[in-house]
């Protein structure tokens, strides 16, 4: 039986565990080399159960998609771990062993307290490259995981605190721009050391028994809290769907079918009706699939704290034989960045029918990964340049969607243009708001971004894995879909549009060639004809929509050089369309 722990001590231990993780996050970010980690915050640190790897606590500023995956990844390490000593650190990036894509490299370390393993500390960081066919790792048309890069099973990179040079040299010989990775490796391991120190202090202070019991109780409490929120949803079956443009190889959309059954305090997720496994890299491994459901629910109920208990009332059937349960050697490079966001979107689209006030229309939901890799003759060096970009968020009951929000699964900031131009031989010709891309609605979607990059020196290869090029982010409750993602490459003045719209790889560009990307806007929320005409006028003055769009999308007629709303004409125009 559980010993009685007073609720105050519980709160104290909960904050204490959280602080251990926050300090690991902080140490990792501030000393990392990969800009994907240091600027884009594409990493996560946490504490996991010593026996089953269940999540005990995770840093508040960790990348949302790692919420669920890291406990699965830690489980896989525990199953394989042997002869553990203090100071051991496993490195692993195998997607099928509780991972995401190969670029997310996990460090997993047994945490010893008074000579015994008390828990596991782990972190994940997105490395800029792990080898494979495409610089940066986002292959758009790989058909086997081997083409995507170096795959590491769990191996001890540090043995009793000493870095294994032999394993290190294997890793460094198989990845691009290897010289800086030693910095990330040290930063990633040092963050775990920080965690070890702080966790030990916490245990010294409150006692191992109290902390152990608190962890158990906190899990129970988180489940209780999640159940309290779920209970507010009316019982019933809610269906939603979302589409991935294509798998990058076969130009057909992939469908996610999301059936959510709400019964009392539990949610049951059935995705078995989704498309079968695909040839290209848009398969999702099961850890990522589950994690995407978790993070979608966390976006809806953000105040519920994170530990294994949070997920207890969420029952996800393994979607066997679909592209959401990829097995070796299915390629998976698109799963963490794109498919995960479609899964979240499918959850949103199902639950908006149940609790419209808490939900929102679909966000842009793509990480917008664009990668340019090449050789810069001026500086005599190879480079891999990542561009990520945001898009509009969906309208919601309380207001319009945000413009240029970050991906659903991320919290990453973009790198400033002035920084990218310093590092890479490119010139940005534009970085602007994607006008008209916000889906019309009573509360409209936010806007995406347009950017245009010109190559200034050398030759380069352009690859991209994005989404929502075929279908815009879904509008809800009568709102329109957001604008679609568009990519156009100009080679020697000739436009080239990728066959798969949002995915392609190794497009050769020369000096003067350009890449032009427009990202999606968010979906609209509720009937656009109910939008306050003054707000529509305001949007036209800002240049978000043209006067023509104001009339076509919102039924609002402007007059007086587009300075005022013609109320009468608006009324007539709205009445006419509504009847029709």
């Amino acid at each position: 039986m559980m010993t009685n722990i007073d609720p105050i001590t519980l709160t104290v231990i909960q904050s204490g565990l959280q602080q251990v993780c926050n300090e690991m996050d902080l140490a990792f970010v501030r000393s990392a080399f990969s800009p994907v980690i240091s600027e884009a915050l594409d990493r996560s640190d946490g504490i996991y159960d010593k026996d089953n790897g269940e999540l005990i606590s995770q840093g508040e500023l960790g990348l949302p998609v790692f919420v669920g995956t890291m406990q699965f990844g830690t489980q896989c390490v525990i199953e394989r771990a042997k002869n553990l000593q203090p100071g051991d650190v496993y490195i692993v990036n195998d997607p099928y062993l509780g991972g995401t894509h190969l670029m997310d490299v996990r460090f997993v370390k047994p945490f010893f307290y008074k000579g015994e393993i008390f828990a596991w500390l782990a972190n994940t960081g997105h490395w800029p490259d792990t080898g494979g066919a495409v610089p940066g790792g986002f292959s758009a048309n790989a058909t086997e995981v081997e083409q995507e890069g170096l795959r590491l099973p769990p191996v001890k990179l540090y043995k009793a605190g000493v870095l294994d040079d032999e394993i290190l040299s294997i890793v460094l010989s198989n990845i691009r721009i290897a010289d800086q990775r030693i910095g990330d490796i040290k930063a990633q391991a040092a963050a775990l050391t920080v965690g070890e120190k702080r966790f030990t202090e916490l245990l010294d202070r409150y006692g191992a028994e109290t902390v152990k019991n608190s962890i158990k109780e906190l899990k129970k409490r988180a489940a209780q809290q999640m159940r309290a929120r779920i209970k507010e949803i009316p019982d019933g079956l809610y269906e939603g769907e979302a589409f991935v443009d294509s798998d990058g190889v076969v130009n057909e959309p992939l469908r996610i079918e999301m059936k959510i059954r709400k019964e009392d305090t539990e949610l049951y997720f059935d995705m078995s009706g989704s498309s079968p496994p695909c040839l290209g890299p848009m398969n999702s491994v099961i850890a990522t699939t589950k994690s995407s459901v978790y993070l979608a629910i966390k976006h809806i109920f953000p105040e519920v704290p994170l530990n294994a208990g949070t997920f207890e009332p969420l029952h996800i059937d393994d979607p066997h034989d679909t592209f959401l349960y990829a097995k070796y050697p299915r390629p998976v490079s698109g799963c963490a960045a794109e498919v995960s966001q479609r899964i979240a979107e499918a959850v949103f689209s199902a639950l908006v029918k149940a609790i419209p006030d808490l939900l929102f229309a679909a966000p842009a939901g793509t990480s917008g990964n664009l990668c340019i890799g090449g050789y810069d003759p001026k500086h005599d060096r190879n480079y891999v340049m990542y561009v990520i970009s945001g898009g509009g968020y969906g309208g919601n009951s309380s207001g319009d969607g945000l413009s240029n929000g970050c991906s659903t699964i991320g919290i990453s900031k973009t790198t400033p243009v002035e920084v990218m131009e310093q590092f890479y031989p490119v010139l940005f010709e534009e970085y602007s708001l994607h006008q008209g891309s916000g889906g019309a609605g009573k509360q409209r979607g936010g806007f995406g971004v347009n950017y245009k990059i010109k190559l200034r020196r050398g030759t380069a290869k352009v690859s991209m894995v994005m989404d929502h090029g075929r279908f815009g982010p879904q509008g809800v409750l009568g709102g329109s879909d957001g604008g679609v993602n568009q990519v156009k490459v100009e080679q020697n003045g000739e436009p080239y549009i990728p066959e798969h719209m949002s995915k392609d790889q190794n497009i050769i560009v020369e000096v003067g060639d350009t890449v032009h990307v427009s990202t999606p806007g968010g979906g609209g929320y509720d009937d656009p004809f109910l939008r306050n005409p003054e707000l529509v006028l305001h949007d036209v003055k800002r240049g978000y929509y043209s006067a023509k769009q104001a009339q076509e999308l919102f039924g609002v007629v402007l007059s007086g050089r587009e300075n005022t709303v013609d109320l009468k004409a608006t009324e007539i125009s709205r009445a006419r369309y509504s009847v029709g």
Partner: protein
Amino acid sequence: MTQIVGVDVGGTFTDLVLFDTKTESVKISKVPSTPENQSFGVMNGLESVGVSLESLDALIHGTTVTTNALLERKVSRVGLITTRGFRDVLELGRRTRPKPYGMTGSFECIIPRELRLEVGERVDCDGEVVEKLNEADVLTAVKQLLESGAEALVIHFLHSYKNDSHERKTEEIARKIWPNAFVTRGSALVSEFREYERGTTAAINAAIQPVLHRYIERLQEKLKEEGYNKDLLVMQGNGGTVSSGIVAEDAVKTVMSGPASGVMAAAYTASQSGFERVVTYDMGGTSCDVGLIVNGIPQVTSELEIEYAMPIHVPMVDVHTIGAGGGSLAWVNDAGLLQVGPESAGAQPGPICYGRGGNKPTITDANLVLGRLNPDALLAVDNPVSLDTVRKYLVEEVGTKLGLQDAEEIAAAILRIANMNMAGALRLVSLARGHDPRDFALFAFGGAGPLHAVALARELGIPKVLVPMRPGITNAVGCVVADVRHDYVNSINIPLTQADMEQVEQLFYRQIEAGKKIIAEEGVEIQELLVIYDVDMQFQGQTHILNFSVQETRLSRESLQSAFEKAYWDRFGVELPEIRAVLVNLHTAVIGRRKPVPLAALMSAKEQKNTIDECRTGNRKVWFESGWKETPVYKREFLPVKAKFNGPAVIEQLDTTIIVEPENQVEVDLEGNLIISL
């Protein structure tokens, strides 16, 4: 210089302190702030201390005019002229959302889109002109903005930190027809890369410039009418002062000057008492502000984000605001766990004990129930509420949900959790800057700071707590002790092995000259000139920088390399001989030290008693973690210098209460500060 006045305008009160250095006496006043026009409060304060403005030697003013204007968005209409293709940079930001979880929220750019215009021009990252400035475009844009009613103008071009010729030319054209002085050139304010942050800083500057200008002009007129003919000095966010004649030019630098002056006072006071490493902790009604002082100097940052997506990249005293104050609410979440904050009862209804209709327990209510606050001496009470009523609400609103019936037990729990949250935030603030809080003293001020300071210090392993003589007017004291200060930053951004160290020295030299020149022009009387240099470095490929001080301007590559390696090891415990170091930025702070102020004058010798026993005004039962204790209550003003006594103790003074725990020792130092040893 004999008579100096510091006046700080806060949300509720305008605090004023008058130092007379000849007679070594002090006058203090606290009058209600007048938010619609802060100058009324300032004039009322001056009147209430009865100072003759003609004989006044210096007046230093801390104002929240710009901070408030910004947070309430009561700003001027600003127009932007920027590089073709980039007018939306300021609206799009860097792809963020307000919180990690939750897909809602909004952001409004400070310059409306229709007032953001583009002109043909482009400079690359090396400063080479890719496209010549189209001057005809500029003229058209300026005219169009004027027609659209823009009052202030921002000129912001890509890579202007590297080559500002296009910005300068544009400024020249604009100034010829712009009807006022409100023209902000991005690179003049911040000479660092990152277009969103530099541009936003410039936009904020322009938006509050006219507001500040009008305010200062009005205040000066009034002062003049009353016979004050000397210059008015205004506090800045970097903790220094600037002459009112030029303050509006860089208006953005006055944002957050209130918290900065508090930290300045702390640095000055602590330093006189022999503490050079200090965590400052200012707790008020809704939040607390935390700052760091290392080697007697308040830590400065250039990366403040005043609210979501509103970065200000000019050097400012690094103050972190934590959402915990006396009014923070205690509540029980769905998991049955007690939480404190971040929601606050605010001024209305405020804590239960204020009698303004509040029925939700706050930190202040918990302190009251635990005997830490004196129910008869609460300042802000409208209708007295009985302790039993407060206890009743504690049980009803919080206790029953936790299965606790004892109001005192509930109050103790609230306190414990509030203290732990604050301690955690304090620890992260210091760790994020690479410092271990155990090496510091805690300087507590604000109405609620001294109530919690000892508990926080215990939680953090901080050995000593310092409470200044007048914790409630610390910001006003900060105005009086602040130096004249100007900060400069230049981006270098090249590997150290390729750095031209002569050029580095020259850049430092130019920064120093600029600082000296402006200080001379301001004409403020100073005692000595102090120059502080530091550099930002990183390993090649990193995006974060590490800032550390250097002692001189003539640096060798080797010395800089080893200083960087050491700073990096201290901060991260990592050595990276494999990777090249990069010199990113050079910073100079040129500081004009003003004449020292006799802090001891803040004590009133008349009131002091001879023995501790005489200082005692009574006893009451107070809750400590070790249980309830009959605790002596002392009156702060009675305590003589060099007095020493042991805890437990409650020390009451007009604007705060200090809790001393049973194991602590208290000492009053020569300046009247309380030094509490844990």
